[in-house]
């Protein structure tokens, strides 16, 4: 499988400046889409490519775009671009924002043409101070060059890109939480239906796409859906940005085809486990996704293979844990996160995240009972499929995932009345 990059510039370089980006072939795809393709043709090409969203859910991007109304309706349409990258273990969109911001702008221009949007709003997480500044500068440059704004690219269309900052709430990465936040409110997710394509930003039709998802679009337009489908697997097409962190020699972001094995990513690209230690556990797609054990490391990193392995691709944020790592402590860190980030709207989530955290703390302290393991499963069960958004499900999957995959270690905490891995990291 050929591994050719089209998202990230060569290591150690960036394509921040407009000239540099253009010299690398930038904005040719946007020019072609605007001048030589109808919106329907762009949507069809992206649909044919099989591109699936890179924000976690993996929904078909072209299909999502078809939910938008035809132009000429009573309300303007918008794109809300999700740069609220907050899923622990995930730091890939930042690579695009910091090193290739014009690629995102070009993708938004093409997407805007496809769905007939008046403008795109990029919602950047508040802590991403440098990425926000770099993207803002690139937008100013693109406007000055006539690539954004009134009659952009010399067409009769107007299209602009605006950036806004979040303020530290993970829930704003949920698409309707982000829309609420972009309207200047608490980021509490909305009930659906109506979906954003009908009732999104300011009550107008809105398509919500992740940064990386949009960044794939120029290559699809430039080289075609058939080329794109030669990368990856039949149902998980294209490259993706895998972020690798934790106990590896070379943590970082690696652009590789979907379907690359987890072991290749960890041992070849990330240099293997640190300090010559043995692998114990891996979270494959951000901490919302159930953990895998070392025995499962040959799994291919695509939607279908990971589902078969009992977990999900999520954001492709891979967290590697070595043999010294206590799984209850890892579960505590994740449970603490969800307890902090629940927006509080739904009882199951608000109460359940706190329960899971307390139960895990008690087990780690050596004060747990065997019945507590059953309670974790029961609480997780109450939290799944009951709430307005998927944060509750994610919190449940994460906790029950650790318990199911490493049950013996949880039981050892209860039986020994202390943590059997005292040398483990501190949560």
């Amino acid at each position, binding site marked *: 499988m050929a591994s050719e990059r089209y998202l990230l510039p060569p290591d150690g370089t960036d394509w921040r400046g407009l000239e540099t980006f253009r010299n690398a072939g930038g904005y040719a795809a946007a020019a072609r889409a605007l001048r030589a393709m109808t919106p329907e043709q762009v949507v069809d090409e992206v649909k044919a490519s099989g591109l699936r969203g890179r924000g976690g859910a993996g929904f078909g991007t072209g299909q999502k775009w078809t939910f938008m109304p035809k132009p000429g309706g009573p309300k303007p349409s918008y794109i809300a671009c999700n740069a609220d990258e907050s899923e622990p273990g995930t*730091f890939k969109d930042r690579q695009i924002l910091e090193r290739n911001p014009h690629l995102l702008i070009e993708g938004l221009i093409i997407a805007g043409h496809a769905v007939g949007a008046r403008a795109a709003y990029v919602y950047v997480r508040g802590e991403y101070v440098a990425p926000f500044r770099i993207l803002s500068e690139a937008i100013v440059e693109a406007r000055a060059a006539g690539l954004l704004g009134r009659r952009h690219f010399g067409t009769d269309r107007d299209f602009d890109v605006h950036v806004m900052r979040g303020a*530290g709430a993970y829930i704003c990465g949920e698409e309707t939480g982000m829309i609420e936040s972009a309207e200047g409110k608490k980021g509490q997710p909305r009930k659906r239906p109506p979906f954003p394509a009908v009732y999104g930003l300011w009550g107008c039709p809105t398509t919500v796409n992740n940064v990386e998802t949009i960044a794939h679009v120029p290559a699809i337009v430039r080289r075609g859906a058939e080329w794109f489908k030669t990368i990856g697997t039949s149902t998980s097409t294209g490259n993706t940005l895998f972020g690798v962190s934790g106990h590896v020699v070379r943590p970082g972001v690696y652009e590789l085809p979907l379907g690359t094995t987890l072991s290749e990513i960890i041992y070849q690209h990330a240099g293997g486990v640190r300090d010559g230690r043995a692998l114990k556990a891996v979270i494959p797609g951000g901490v919302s996704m159930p953990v895998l054990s070392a025995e499962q490391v040959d799994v291919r990193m695509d939607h279908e293979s990971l589902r078969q392995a009992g977990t999900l691709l999520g954001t492709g944020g891979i967290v590697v844990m070595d043999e010294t790592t206590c799984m209850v402590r890892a579960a505590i860190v994740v449970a603490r996160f969800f307890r902090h980030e629940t927006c509080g709207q739904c009882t199951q989530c608000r109460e359940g995240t706190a329960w899971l955290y307390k139960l895990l703390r008690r087990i780690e302290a050596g004060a747990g009972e065997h019945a507590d393991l059953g309670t974790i499963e029961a609480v997780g069960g109450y939290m799944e499929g009951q709430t307005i958004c998927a944060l509750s499900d994610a919190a449940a999957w994460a906790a029950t995932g650790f318990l199911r995959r490493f049950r013996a270690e949880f039981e050892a905490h209860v039986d020994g009345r202390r943590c059997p891995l005292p040398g483990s*990291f501190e949560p």
Partner: protein
Amino acid sequence: MSEERAAPLLSAAVREAIVAETGKYPEPRSALLMALHMVQAELGYVPLAAQREVAAILGLRPIEVREVVTFYPMYHEHPVGRRHVQVCANLGCALTGSRAVIRGLEERLGVRCGERRADGAYSLEEVQCLGSCGTAVCVQVNNEPFIENVRPDRLDELVKAIG
């Protein structure tokens, strides 16, 4: 400088910047999060008096501003240290030693995590994932770019970078 001094009103520059920000959106309320960042950059926190001023500029009720200030972790309704030090304690950073970094900073900076030093120089906070897991441990001071690849055994460097 007295600790209890009344918060200064927003400067003309910040007021103008907030009004300019509203131009990006069909509804002025959408400028609220950006407006609060501007206020905090100027005052160091977002006191109630400033919230009322922002509400007036954007045509909102003060409670509509306050519910946003208190919902989002990055806004401070009360003063923090002049150097507000935030250490990521989520999984990538925890596995790489963020707990030891927090303990070391408590000692070096003379402030407990979650608190503000009496002279107002520093406050220390444990935060959720900053999106820098590949360059853990990650620390952010005020609203500045990240300090990355922090190591518990190289705290001298970190304290110098914090300033």
